[in-house]
């Protein structure tokens, strides 16, 4: 099997990896680049735990081939904090106890960040529909919604 050489940008850093053509972007992030923040829940695009931004667009990295990322900009959960300083979404998720087991959290953080980039002031219904592709079996979602609303308020400077 011929491997494909891929050059991309992940969280602002140039990266290179050799992808088997069958490998997903999620496999490449985790196994070739050591970025294990993105999780594999279902592997079929149903759960959202592997959510990343590909050239700014929210996607499931399990539904993208590693080879397709050539020349693309990828943002993962590892890019949210600045060193030790957490992103407002990360801080608010902790404050509101918006996670229990934490497996879905990286995907939800990335998805929520993508939402706030295009809608800084979403209402509850908009947040729930946007995050409909991110499954959480622990929280019952209410704390997640409140954490996203609170983070959005802080990021708008209204907190």
């Amino acid at each position: 099997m011929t491997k494909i050489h891929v050059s991309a940008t992940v969280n602002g850093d140039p990266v290179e990896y050799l992808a088997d053509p069958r490998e997903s972007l999620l496999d490449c992030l985790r196994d070739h680049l050591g970025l294990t923040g993105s999780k594999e829940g279902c592997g079929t695009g149903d759960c959202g735990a592997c959510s990343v931004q590909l050239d700014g667009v929210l996607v499931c990295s399990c539904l993208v081939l590693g080879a397709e990322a050539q020349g693309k900009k990828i943002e993962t959960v590892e890019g949210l904090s600045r060193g030790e300083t957490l992103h407002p979404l990360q801080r608010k998720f902790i404050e509101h106890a918006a996670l229990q087991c934490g497996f879905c959290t990286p995907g939800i953080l990335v998805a929520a960040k993508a939402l706030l980039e295009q809608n800084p002031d979403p209402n509850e219904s908009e947040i729930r529909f946007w995050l409909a592709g991110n499954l959480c079996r622990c929280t019952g979602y209410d704390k997640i919604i409140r954490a996203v609303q609170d983070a959005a308020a802080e990021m708008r400077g209204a907190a």
Partner: protein
Amino acid sequence: MRYHTPKSFDEAAAIAAKADGKTRFLAGGTDVLVQLRAGMVTPDDLIDIKHIAGVSDIARTADGGWRIGVAVSGAELGRHAALCADWPGVIEGMNLVGSTQVQGRATLVGNLCNGSPAADSVPGLIAAGATVTVTGPKGSREVAVEAIPTGPGKTVLAAGEVISAVTLPARGTGGGDAYLRFIPRTEMDIAVVGAAVNLRVVGGRITEARVALGAVAPTVILVPEAAAAIIGTDLNDAALAALTAAAEAAAKPISDKRGTAAFRKEVVGVLARRAALIAFARAKGEAK
């Protein structure tokens, strides 16, 4: 598995025509990668058509219609204000497919070629009178969307043929379309029944109509009898009753875990009627 990135549809078709094993074309990948992962389909040649010029474009045609590239995602269609104003029913169908993440990648042509009778974007396309350009080793031809699916998971496309564009006709004046589906949840589900209606209103009366029904037959079906029931009327109660009866009569559903045949037959009439009312209001400029 060999991964190809052709720069033209002729090149893509040539790779597929030459291949002796399984081939798949890759655009949004939201079906192909799931099948790959599940071991259902492991292509020998995977042909990524996103490197072909124009595949991400939405452009006006010379006659005032739209030409949509095969890699344009559902999210991109939903953000295109002029396209949504012309064909709200087509776009609302596509935007019902999957999650935000899936909308970032999934395409109209992928939804069509997956061949599901429950595909949410297909009834709207058929009702609109959309066509697709099929490119193969012998050149390109224009095919009506309703002629593409031949059964669950099956299409009319021959080996080496690939869809290279979607064309929507000019909207013209007094036009309106709508798509409705029934699911037991509010989001993230597969249609139990779907119905799309596209019509034109002149002087308060319907002069043209097309009705397409989803998930009530082996393919999405175009139902001329349902359109005939409302053409020439002002969509009064008698016309709506005739539309309901025609939709129910055309439906040949199966019973499965999503719903019984009897339930689907009843719901398809209800959805056809409601979609017609929305399309009628849109045509008269009374609804968005």
